[in-house]
């Protein structure tokens, strides 16, 4: 609460800087950017139509086989306003709190994949525990082999904040480097199918009781500026 004026001041200064940069950008650069965005917009509209059709088909099939309908998630855009000054946690603060109906355990994503989970909520800000933080354990699924494990913090290489461990994998799992890891949907906190990252290597753990794999996160946690908070 005490730091809100300073955070506001920082935002105003950065917006002045952004506006000044926009003013001095040449017209041809802006037109090129506009054309590129229009093309991208058309592509995304077509993809959106296809996905809507698939979603309707999925709903119809789920009804046919008697499965419960999935509830749609609402998303809210939030800005990253501060990071954890302590080096032994991986967390950051966003500018939405209970005033925006943010609740604890709400999943946080961006366009590249899973970012983390809301750990605590204040009136105007919330603390997010990022993937790889000891407060954020995630049930994960390897897309190619359908093997399931749990994403835990990587203690072997904490200097690279974008590496985590996929642990408790079955010892007969045939996981290869390059396989994709997504959320499994177990635990009912994260929706199924959000991309987490890519397998880097696999090795046996605890005298061969299970396998563990190093996973390179799809999201660069250290360079986050904006995130989406999912709300049920």
């Amino acid at each position: 609460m005490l730091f809100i004026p300073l955070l506001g001041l920082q935002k105003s200064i950065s917006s002045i800087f952004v506006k000044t940069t926009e003013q001095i950008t040449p017209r041809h650069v802006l037109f090129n950017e506009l054309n590129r965005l229009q093309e991208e917009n058309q592509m995304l509209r077509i993809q959106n139509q296809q996905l809507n059709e698939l979603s309707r088909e999925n709903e119809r099939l789920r009804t046919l086989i008697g499965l419960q309908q999935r509830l749609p998630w609402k998303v809210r855009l939030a800005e990253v306003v501060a990071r954890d000054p302590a080096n032994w946690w991986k967390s950051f603060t966003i500018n939405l709190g209970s005033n925006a109906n943010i609740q604890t355990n709400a999943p946080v994503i961006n366009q590249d994949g899973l970012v983390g989970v809301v750990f605590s909520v204040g009136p105007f800000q919330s603390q997010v525990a990022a993937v790889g933080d000891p407060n954020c354990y995630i049930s994960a699924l390897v897309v190619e082999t359908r093997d399931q494990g749990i994403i835990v913090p990587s203690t072997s290489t904490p200097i690279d904040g974008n590496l985590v461990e996929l642990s408790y994998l079955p010892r007969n799992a045939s996981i290869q480097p390059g396989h994709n890891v997504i959320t499994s949907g177990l635990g009912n906190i994260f929706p199924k199918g959000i991309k987490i990252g890519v397998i880097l290597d696999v090795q046996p753990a605890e005298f061969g009781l299970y396998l563990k794999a190093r996973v390179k996160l799809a999201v660069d946690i250290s360079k986050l500026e904006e995130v989406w908070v999912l709300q049920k």
Partner: protein
Amino acid sequence: MKNNIQFTSILLTGFLTVFLEATLDWPRQFLRFQPDILPIIIIYAAIYLSPLSILALSILFGWWLDSFSLNPFGISAFPLTIIGLIMNRFHELILYETTTGQIVLGFFAGFLAPVLAIILMLGHEPAPIVSHYTFLYCLGNGIICGLVLPGIFKLFNLLIKCFAYPEATSSSFRPDREIKRGKY
């Protein structure tokens, strides 16, 4: 008056330091860790202020830092208080006015504060991410604090010179050399 200025300037510097540590990202990108210079601000406070003021500053700094962090609330206050009170107890025995003394003091404070915080949190569930890289971080923080502490001394001394009354110059009068006149 001088102590009030010192207390206020240390309090404001600590407040700004916590804010900058939470919002400035380039030190983290450059060094691969976020340096924490609050222990050396407490070292400066411990030399010039009373134990009660040190306690108040340590608690406030710790709370502010923990408000941005997943640390158990208030845990960062303990290392700062311990370092501050030890320094206050022994400050007359330490050569804090020399640059070398300041560098050594800064190194120990910057190294000890994260070590103490981690030791306090080992019993906490979930435990923080601790490995041999944590030792490297503590060492790096110690080096940075050691290099910054002489600058902190210079900055605060300059601030105090600007706002406090000038120190009274010592008189050349010596009572033992006084020539007394009159009847004896």
